[in-house]
């Protein structure tokens, strides 16, 4: 794992993965949208409204997946002081926040016709809203210090504390009675969802994950390039300062 902490090696590997992840994202999302909107059956109870699920459920998975990834990167950054791990955690946060937001909005749009309400304060919905606030808090905290390293450290600790919320979201529907239905895909006794509806769901989930890899690589490359630029500028200023110094001394004497 420590081998990948070297930015030069990371960039080489990232350049190899990038075209593949773009291809997987485009193909999986293209096929996934086709299946979700046209080539899958309507539900026996929900009718066409079931199609919201193909965006809603993979978004919810992404919200939890990105947060877990962010917490793992933050732990690596805190324990082994890998600057790259910090960078990847920060790059993951907005992706996870966006998908969590999409999950909450699509859930509300589904809830109005099906349940009869946009929002209720049950355990699943509330813990998902808390996840969004954790993302926003993480991003705000990481940028709240003049010294970026201190911000990173504080935000990494917040990410680790907040990770207890992830299992709470997953099992909230089993631990407490909620308005939200229990899990359909990852549950004991196999999925309770028809195979024809599973296809678009899995395609969308794969496409979203590949999208995250693409964004992660793009942001990491941009950040590494930015860091290089800063180092070069600092060196330039430093060199200019050294040139000016003797002249100033001459003028003073």
């Amino acid at each position, binding site marked *: 794992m420590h081998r990948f902490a070297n930015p030069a090696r990371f960039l080489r590997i990232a350049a190899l993965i990038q075209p593949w992840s773009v291809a997987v994202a485009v193909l999986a999302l293209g096929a996934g949208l086709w299946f979700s909107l046209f080539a899958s*059956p*309507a*539900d*026996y*109870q*929900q009718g066409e409204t*079931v199609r919201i*699920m193909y965006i809603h459920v993979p978004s919810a998975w992404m919200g939890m997946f990105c947060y877990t990834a962010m917490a793992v990167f933050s*732990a690596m950054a*805190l*324990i*082994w002081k890998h600057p790259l791990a910090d960078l990847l955690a920060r790059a993951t946060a907005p992706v996870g926040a966006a998908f969590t937001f999409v999950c909450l909005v699509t859930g509300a749009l589904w809830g109005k*016709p*099906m*349940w*009869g*309400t946009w929002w*209720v*304060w*049950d*355990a699943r919905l509330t813990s998902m809203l808390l996840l969004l606030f954790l993302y926003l808090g993480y991003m705000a905290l990481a940028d709240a210090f003049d010294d970026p390293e201190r911000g990173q450290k504080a935000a990494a600790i917040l990410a*680790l*504390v907040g*990770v*207890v919320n992830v299992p*709470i979201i997953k099992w909230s529907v089993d*631990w*407490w*009675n*909620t*308005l939200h*239905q*229990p*899990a*359909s895909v990852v*549950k004991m006794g196999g999925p*309770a*969802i*028809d195979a*024809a*509806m599973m296809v678009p769901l899995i395609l969308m989930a794969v496409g979203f994950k590949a999208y995250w890899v693409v964004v992660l690589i793009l942001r990491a490359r941009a950040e590494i390039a930015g860091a290089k630029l800063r180092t070069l500028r600092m060196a330039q200023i430093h060199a200019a300062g050294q040139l000016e110094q003797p002249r100033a001394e001459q003028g003073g004497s």
Partner: protein
Amino acid sequence: MTRKQRRLYFVVLGLLAVGAAAALVLTALKEDIVFFFSPTEIVEAKVPTEGRRIRLGGLVETGSVVKEGASVRFTVTDGAHAVPVIYAGILPDLFREGQGVVTEGRMDKGTFQAAEVLAKHDENYMPKEVADSLKKSGQWQGDGGKTPEAAK
């Protein structure tokens, strides 16, 4: 012990402590986190109902939906006990006999005066044809209730 190991143990211990704290808080607040009470809890008076706005959840008993003018009467059951409910308002699309519902309101002389009725969806997703063939072959385990005339 190197500094890296010390930080590793610190992070692991911290996570365990936070996890334990969350578990304790959630166990202590169990009664407040549940979204609704079952008919059994209300009939056996396990929860204070007098003058309190509460939520009652369960299945709409088959054959219990009766329309009376602007309001509708039905019974919410969990298999063991049942509570009669009266409600005046628009029912959600998924409301039907045998379907899960969550109603919010007050208990009044043994009848639940609902101010709001929400339909609860289950975790089963299938096309209409699959549901029909399951019903035909007698393997149907869901509610299978048809929308009662009164709820239309």
